[in-house]
């Protein structure tokens, strides 16, 4: 006889799905750039906004964004939060800073990890630069960007990034 136990109410049954993902023409250009340690954006021929990463068309004007734009390594933290919640599958040690980073010359921000600065000193307007993984680790993924770190420049003016938070 088994000893008395709590009734089983749920079972975790991990499953695995393998799939092929085709990145498409526009995103592939961006991913190849990342594999070389640089950011590649695309400009909309109608509104001139620079998207990075671009999906190949402008979401506002609905036209192809064919013109490639080489972007630099620096940008501005437009807003951020400090993640302090553990969850299944988490790969970064908490607490960590997730920021919206607006690269210089781009018109849309993307999520980036901020490191090499104490959490309580991160602020909106902080100037940052990308730190890439070792050259032999570079690949076609945002994971090629290890994190962003402060450049030491003066903070950007609020007016310069307020529409990109």
């Amino acid at each position: 006889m088994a000893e008395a136990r709590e009734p089983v109410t749920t079972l975790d049954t991990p499953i695995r799905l393998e799939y092929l993902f085709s990145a498409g023409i526009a995103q592939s250009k961006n991913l190849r750039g990342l594999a070389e340690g640089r950011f590649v954006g695309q400009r909309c021929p109608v509104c001139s906004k620079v998207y990075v990463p671009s999906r190949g068309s402008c979401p506002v004007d609905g036209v192809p964004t064919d013109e490639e734009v080489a972007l630099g390594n620096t940008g501005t933290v437009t807003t951020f939060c400090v993640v302090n919640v553990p969850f299944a599958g988490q790969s970064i040690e908490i607490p960590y800073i997730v920021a919206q980073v607006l690269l210089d010359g781009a018109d849309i921000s993307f999520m980036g990890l901020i490191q090499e600065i104490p959490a309580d000193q991160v602020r909106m307007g902080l100037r940052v630069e990308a730190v890439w993984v070792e050259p032999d680790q570079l690949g076609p993924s945002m994971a090629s960007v290890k994190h962003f770190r402060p450049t030491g420049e003066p903070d950007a003016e609020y007016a310069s990034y307020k529409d990109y938070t």
Partner: protein
Amino acid sequence: MSERVAVIGTGQTKHAAKRDDVSIAGLVREAALRALEDAGLGWADIDAVVIGKAPDMFEGVMMPELYLAPALGAVGKPIMRVHTAGSVGGSTALVAAHLVTSGIHDRVLTVAFEKQSDSDAMWALSVPQPFSAPLLAGAGGYFAPHIRAYMRRSGAPGHIGMQVAVKDRLQALKNPYAHLHLPDISIEMVEQSVMLWDPLHYLEACPSSDGAAAMVLGSEQAAAAAQVDTGRRPAWVHGMAMRSEPTMFAGRDQINPRAGRECAADVYRQAGVTDPRRDFDCAEVYVPFSWYEPMWLENLGFCDEGDGWKLTDAGSTSMDGGDIPWNCSGGVLSSNPIGASGMLRFLEAAMQVRGEAGEHQVDGTRRALAQAYGGGSQFFAMWVVGTDKP
């Protein structure tokens, strides 16, 4: 031709962290039976069923509407599923209402649910995407930076979010169906809770709930018959609208999204609302994180841009003396069965108009607003309900 439509029955479950006494089918059936009973109807009276829930990955049951059809009396009847992320409960109600206004059906059952204890929402919302850095950290991780941007833009003081967290939990004490009943809630308690996604404390975030909501929507004829049978008046739909916008485009205002503003303008125009703060007696608005109350006060035009926090600060949105009580049910901050959370807003607004909200009733409510939003603030659904036949 557009026919009139009214809410003639409402039902919801007791929302809880874990409803292990019921399966998903049992959960939706509990809400649906209550809605039918409230409408004085049986399964045979229903023409069609419209169901909604958050993405299937949450519970890991793909297309659950198929297996739920028998539990909802939908065998041999039209059943359809709606998908609009967190706003889905609202969109589902609107799709059901359109089946009546279009003259296709007389009585439509609409149901929405989530069984979060069967799921892992933090995981489901944070799955690594191909070629991306694994930075996503649940809904809070997505919305907290926008909250910070709102605080910067409006100059709101830091206590505003905590004030909403306390107000909605105090109001939840008057709602027997609410998940969280925290009689000792206070600013100090919120402030001392863990800072999960700085600037958001644990108690400024919604709970994880199991729960379901259901409504019976009826045509003019069905509403008249139900009122005779039950003695309960219908809540007439005076306006309904949905809007969406892309999640990412240059210059997107994520703090005050255009889709939300345009959705509100549309629904107000239909209902003849010109001054929402004056014209509504109360509102049920999707506030899963405390700061979304002041943000949506602005987005919904209850005040000028930048002034939302002042209404919250002045107590204007409180049932306790405020002129425009928001989320008298306790809102999403007190019960969050995700897929049902939007429908609960729509249902609670209807309960207020019908005078059926019990202890959290705002006396004399003649017109109420319900709003649900979802995804990265890109899906909006709203309706205006009132006592008068439009």
